[in-house]
């Protein structure tokens, strides 16, 4: 018997705000436990939550970037559950009137394009973070309680684990380029829950779905879905029934493990949040946000490969993060040659970031520096070799490349009236090289270039020296 899979995703993004969704508690990643909470976060009696405007604004950005329709009227609901990660014993979310509905994104798998529907997206508050000890206790940090989340719920349109992977990649890129979230799975600013059901080919009704929560990486998503496809098939083929449940992916074994049999929606006893008024989202505001949307990764790719003539591979490396793409764009805007800027970004700059485990935001090099240095290379003031020295200085100390080159006398020696007699003298001093050259030994010229470089402390223009040496040797 053949089966057909139906896969859906619920992806949570932490929205990049300075304060929480319902209280002004600060939001700082890595703060000391329980230092960024207040009476609203804990749900003390008599407190009144108030909604952070920025949460709506960032949510609307993602809605627009995923072709979703922003609902004109939204309101919050209370979802009741009892767990130590929330002292309130409820989560404020949007159950009935979410932020946006009916969007889609386009994915490509093995050259085949497909549109994946987005059912809805809503804003809600995060819960605290539990750390499970081995001594029979868990440890709760409520700093995360009340951090704004945007939950994006896909339609169950996804046919296989590969397409699921492509959907997540694309969604992450889209959200990242709106600037609404850091989308870092390792820091929990992007969290993926997936669900999968299978049914015999030809059967209309969907099978019973199994959910998997908090997968650590896209690769785990793919592996756990592939495992579930196989497991559910075996269950059905042996005459069993798939249980409506939540399972967990076990990294060590590559298997999924039953975590709990699911509580039905009714058990959360949702009701309209009485402390927060409804929100009417004006069309004018949505239009204003649309006008402020940063350029999407797809549009940037088109510019990089079209207008700038970069190779698709180079363009994609630049587009791995919004920070790197923004940095490149700023360097080009400051006058850098796009191809040279891309080369420097993707080799020297990335190399430096990886070697030093740092980020573009933390280094001393600015896009203006990069542009300045590239201009010095382009107009022949410095050689690529010297440029590496300049880069090492600027990236660590923030020294202006131009000022550094002038102060250290690193300007490339291209003056023919200086180089020509130097070349003659070197050839005179090395008669064997002339013989070697005449005998077709190309290495001879390399040796002579080395001599000139030695005399000029690496400042001679290598292109000019090569040309002059060739002429001189041929004339002997």
């Amino acid at each position, binding site marked *: 018997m053949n089966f057909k899979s139906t896969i859906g995703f619920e992806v949570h993004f932490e929205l990049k705000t300075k304060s929480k969704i319902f209280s002004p508690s600060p939001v700082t990643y890595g703060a000391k436990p329980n230092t960024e909470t207040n009476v609203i976060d*804990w749900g003390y009696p008599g407190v009144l939550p108030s909604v952070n405007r920025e949460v709506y604004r960032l949510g609307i950005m993602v809605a627009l970037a995923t072709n979703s329709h922003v609902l004109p009227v939204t309101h919050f609901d209370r979802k009741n559950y009892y767990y130590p990660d929330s002292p309130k014993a409820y989560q404020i979310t949007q159950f009935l009137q979410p932020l946006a509905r009916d969007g889609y994104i386009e994915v490509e798998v093995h050259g085949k394009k497909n549109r994946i529907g987005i059912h809805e997206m809503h804003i809600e508050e995060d819960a605290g973070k539990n750390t499970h000890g081995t001594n029979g*206790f868990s*440890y709760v940090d409520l700093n995360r309680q009340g951090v704004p989340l945007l939950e994006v719920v896909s339609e169950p349109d996804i046919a296989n684990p590969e397409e699921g992977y492509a959907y997540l990649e694309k969604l992450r890129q889209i959200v990242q380029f709106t600037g609404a979230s850091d989308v870092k799975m390792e820091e929990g600013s992007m969290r993926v829950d997936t669900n999968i059901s299978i049914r015999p080919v030809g059967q209309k009704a969907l099978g019973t779905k199994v959910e998997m929560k908090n997968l650590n990486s896209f690769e785990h998503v793919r592996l756990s879905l592939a495992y579930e496809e196989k497991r559910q098939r075996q269950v059905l083929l042996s005459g069993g029934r798939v249980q409506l449940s939540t399972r967990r992916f076990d990294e060590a074994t590559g298997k999924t493990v039953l975590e709990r049999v699911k509580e039905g929606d009714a058990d959360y006893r949702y009701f309209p949040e009485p402390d927060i008024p409804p929100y009417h989202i004006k069309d004018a505001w949505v239009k204003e946000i649309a006008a402020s949307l940063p350029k999407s990764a797809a549009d940037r790719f088109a510019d990089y490969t079209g207008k700038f003539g970069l190779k698709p591979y180079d363009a994609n490396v630049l587009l791995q993060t919004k920070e790197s793409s923004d940095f490149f764009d700023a360097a080009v805007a400051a006058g850098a040659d796009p191809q040279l800027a891309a080369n420097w970004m993707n080799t020297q700059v990335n190399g430096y970031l990886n070697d030093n485990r740092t980020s573009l935001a933390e280094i001393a090099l600015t896009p203006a520096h990069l542009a300045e240095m590239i201009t010095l290379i382009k107009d022949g003031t410095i050689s690529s070799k010297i440029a590496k020295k300049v880069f090492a200085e600027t990236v660590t100390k923030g020294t202006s490349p131009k000022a550094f080159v002038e102060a250290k006398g690193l300007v490339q020696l291209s003056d023919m009236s200086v180089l020509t007699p130097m070349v003659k003298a070197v050839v005179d001093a090395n008669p064997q090289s002339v013989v070697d050259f005449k005998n077709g030994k190309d290495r001879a010229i390399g040796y002579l270039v080395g001599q000139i470089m030695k005399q000029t402390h690496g400042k001679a223009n290598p292109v000019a020296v090569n040309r002059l040496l060739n002429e001189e040797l041929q004339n002997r």
Partner: protein
Amino acid sequence: MEVTEEMIKHVAILSRLEFKADELGEFTSQMGDIINMANQLAEVDTTGVAETAQVVDRDTTFRDDVPEHWQDRDTMMKNVPEKANGFIKVPVIIDKDDND
């Protein structure tokens, strides 16, 4: 609406509440009374009254995204029964694996 003992047991599990078996009858009838009192609202004629999720006259009230420190950790943790290194210490809360 009739509140049954099964309903009370179910809600007690969801709410992590424990009580003695001989208290069940009393809670069931009390809860039934509360629900029935609230049900009196159904007798009000609401013809022509718009549906709403709230009764105060507020709409679309936003706060600016400005962080403020209100209470420090010591203040917030005053009522925490057990703490360790700034964390709230609770009995282990991961569900037991039920592997198949």
